[in-house]
């Protein structure tokens, strides 16, 4: 689910932070720049793990504070394809499920990746007909799913007024196999 990414970034330290100890102010700036943001193909940045090197410190002409080149590692949330994750069902509709992981909410399980035959009931739950036994998916239930794809859509230039809010990172999950789906389905 999590991995480290090594990055290098050159940036100017704001003048008001120059008085603080250098590692602390650099870390603060890196957190402001990267924390809780999605980097395409690298995932969601959870935290700054460590700072490998700080170089530079020159003040360029026309600027009032030093510029540093910093090499550092970030803890990234980037599940691999085929990984099993556990989350809570956040929303059910006729197109499928939306699952929340607390810190990450854009997980969708489309209806075509459900075990078949399933159907959406009027009371807002999903029903799976397993050889005559009906199994249900309810709201807020703990659900185990496999990552099908991780997509990083590009930012739309125009967005309709009532369109879904843009999500820079989306996980499409599947519950089509044995052992996947609500955890309560598979407990003895």
């Amino acid at each position, binding site marked *: *689910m*999590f*991995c*480290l*990414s*090594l*990055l*290098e*970034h*050159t*940036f*100017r330290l704001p003048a008001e932070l120059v008085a603080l100890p250098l590692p602390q102010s650099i870390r603060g700036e890196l*957190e402001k*720049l*990267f*924390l*809780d*943001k*999605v*980097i*395409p*193909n*690298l995932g969601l940045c*959870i*935290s700054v*793990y460590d700072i490998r090197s700080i170089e530079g410190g020159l003040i*360029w002409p026309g*600027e009032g504070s030093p*510029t540093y080149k910093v*090499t550092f*590692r970030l*803890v990234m*949330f980037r599940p*691999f394809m*085929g*990984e*099993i994750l*556990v*989350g*809570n069902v*956040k*929303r059910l509709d006729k197109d499928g499920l939306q699952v*929340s*992981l*607390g*810190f990450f909410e854009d997980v969708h399980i489309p209806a075509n990746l459900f075990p078949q035959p399933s159907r959406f009931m009027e009371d807002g739950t999903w029903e799976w007909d397993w050889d005559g036994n009906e199994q249900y998916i309810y709201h*807020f239930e*703990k659900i185990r799913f*496999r990552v099908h794809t991780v997509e990083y859509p590009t*930012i739309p230039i125009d967005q309709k007024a009532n369109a879904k*809010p*843009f999500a*820079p990172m989306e996980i499409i999950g599947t519950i089509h*196999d*044995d*052992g*996947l789906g609500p955890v309560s389905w*598979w*407990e*003895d």
Partner: protein
Amino acid sequence: MHTYYFRDEQKALVMFRCTTISYAYARIEANAGNLTNFEVLDFLRSRGATKLGSAAPSECKVFDYLEQTAAANQSRESIAEFLKRSEKYDLTKAEKLQTINLRPTTPVAVYVIIEECGQRFDDEQVSEFAEMVEEVLPGPPANSGAMEVDQPSQ
């Protein structure tokens, strides 16, 4: 608005919710190592995620999620013991990582994690593995039934 002087750096888009900010930064190594949930939890604990105000809200959300999983009660010793005992099964790195993160204690859960489980192991070996996992890796906290989810406003 900062001006950056960049040479040979890869320009990329860093997106935050609905705002886009463009930075110029270089990625040296996209994958510098996988982390188990336990390692991330340990790291967040050392950053002070248990106390309010020491860590960022996003770090606290990840901390709250991980505290509900099996990682909350794990230790380096239990993970080292598991790695030693699982050597004979010849698992891939991804399978070992997922086993540590998810702690499968039933054959069904083991089948989900291990690829081509039916071809590589017979039923007895799968049950043996599930029992070993239950014995070596500590269980998740008792109240992990329902994780906190923001109620949707409807």
